[in-house]
């Protein structure tokens, strides 16, 4: 299934949706499928500063733990507290209720360094073959 067109993507399989200078961040459908059942998501505190392509949290599936990388730099203005009780939302609705953090962008030009949906889909297709 093609990835949503209105998002930008990282090579670490995070997405960001930017509205009014704020980016909502999550992981892609491909990533949640590869991870399998997600049982714990460790997110930063509100007010934390994150940097593009640096870790902002961790995600634990039954199988393994992985780092979460922020697609954008800025201040965390909201975290998805619902994931504390229902981490499986990342599996069920990765682009919707499974979102993780909202970041007030400090440098919107960073978005140009991220992949479009078409680029990301091509990247995943390549990775799946490797």
């Amino acid at each position, binding site marked *: 299934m093609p990835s949503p067109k209105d998002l930008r993507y990282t090579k670490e399989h995070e997405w960001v949706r930017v509205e009014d200078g704020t980016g909502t961040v999550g992981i892609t459908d491909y990533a949640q499928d590869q991870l399998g059942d997600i*049982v714990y998501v460790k997110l930063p505190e509100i007010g934390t500063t994150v940097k593009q392509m640096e870790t902002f949290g961790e995600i634990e599936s039954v199988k393994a733990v992985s780092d979460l990388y922020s697609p954008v730099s800025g201040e965390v203005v909201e975290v998805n507290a619902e994931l504390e009780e229902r981490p499986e939302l990342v599996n069920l609705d990765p682009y919707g209720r499974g979102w993780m953090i909202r970041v007030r962008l400090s440098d919107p030009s960073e978005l140009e360094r991220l992949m479009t949906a078409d680029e990301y889909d091509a990247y995943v297709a390549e990775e799946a073959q490797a």
Partner: protein
Amino acid sequence: MSEPALLRTPLYEEHVRLGARMVPFAGWEMPLQYRGIIEEHMAVRKAAGMFDVSHMGRFEVRGPEAAAGLRRLCTYAVDRLAPGQGHYAFLCNEGGGILDDIYVFRLDRDRFLVVANAANAGKVRRWLEAHLPPGAGLIDRHRSTTMVAVQGPQAVAICSAALALSLGDLPRRGCMETAWAEGTLFASRTGYTGEDGVELVVEAEAGPALWRRLLAAGVVACGLGARDTLRLEAALPLYGQDIDEGVNPFELGLAFAVSLDDGAPFIGREALLRVREQGPQRLLACLRATERGIMRAGYPIYRGQDEVGKVTSGGYSPSLGTSIGMGFLPPPLAQPGTALTVGVRGRPLPVQVVPRPFYRPPRP
């Protein structure tokens, strides 16, 4: 760089047909999961699930010296098993270190089935060949048979109905050989999930028919992922993670599989007598997280600032909704109630030593 080709069980095509995610495991291409680890895990806890365990080593030992020959290699008095009985046992080296943990079934007076870990199948075969007496022949059944473990509170009833057999008559750890629609079938009332269930062995070519019958009867196909979470909840150690040749049975707390009082010699007996006399230097303890966070194999265990052990198996318990794990601790710290922490990527996760097992099925 080319990797050695992975072996495939007779059920490989069935796994692919069901959309399993296949992974390498101990030299075999095995299903990690089909629909999802938690869903498969809960199917076993609530109803019935099945696992392709054909990758596990299967050796038939037969002949007039089979019982005596195996007794000299096994920690448990397998020569005292009645036909139709099985027991868990260890193969140890002279130092009492575990070469493999195995299941031994007595099929009849002069015929035994030994089930070994997949990763140790070659080692076990060489060990048996080197040490069994001339009157005990070894027949490798690894590639000529298929083995399926069917586990869960409804496993025995569903299998009995699907295969037109009375498996409910089997006592715990009991075994039988019988004819079924597709040939000969071995069944034992055993498993590796903490649930009731059976393990079935049929000829390799009959494997797919057995698998499809069980699938049609409503048994859920389960992969290695669920097998690991289920055995961890049951606090069953896994060779290669919790067990290696430097571990002895008393450290695992599994003295029930060691017979020292029948006087019969076996390899490792003297060393194990000393361990029993002096008491083990460390014990495999069950740890349960008291806060959110997941402990995994290799993470350090602390008491205050002091590292006192390492997690040997750890993960998420679907039944308990929290992280659980096991690790070796000095005996005084291995007592239930001890409060410790596990270093989870640099952060302390509070854990408590709890009694074994983590999960016990409700009485029917």
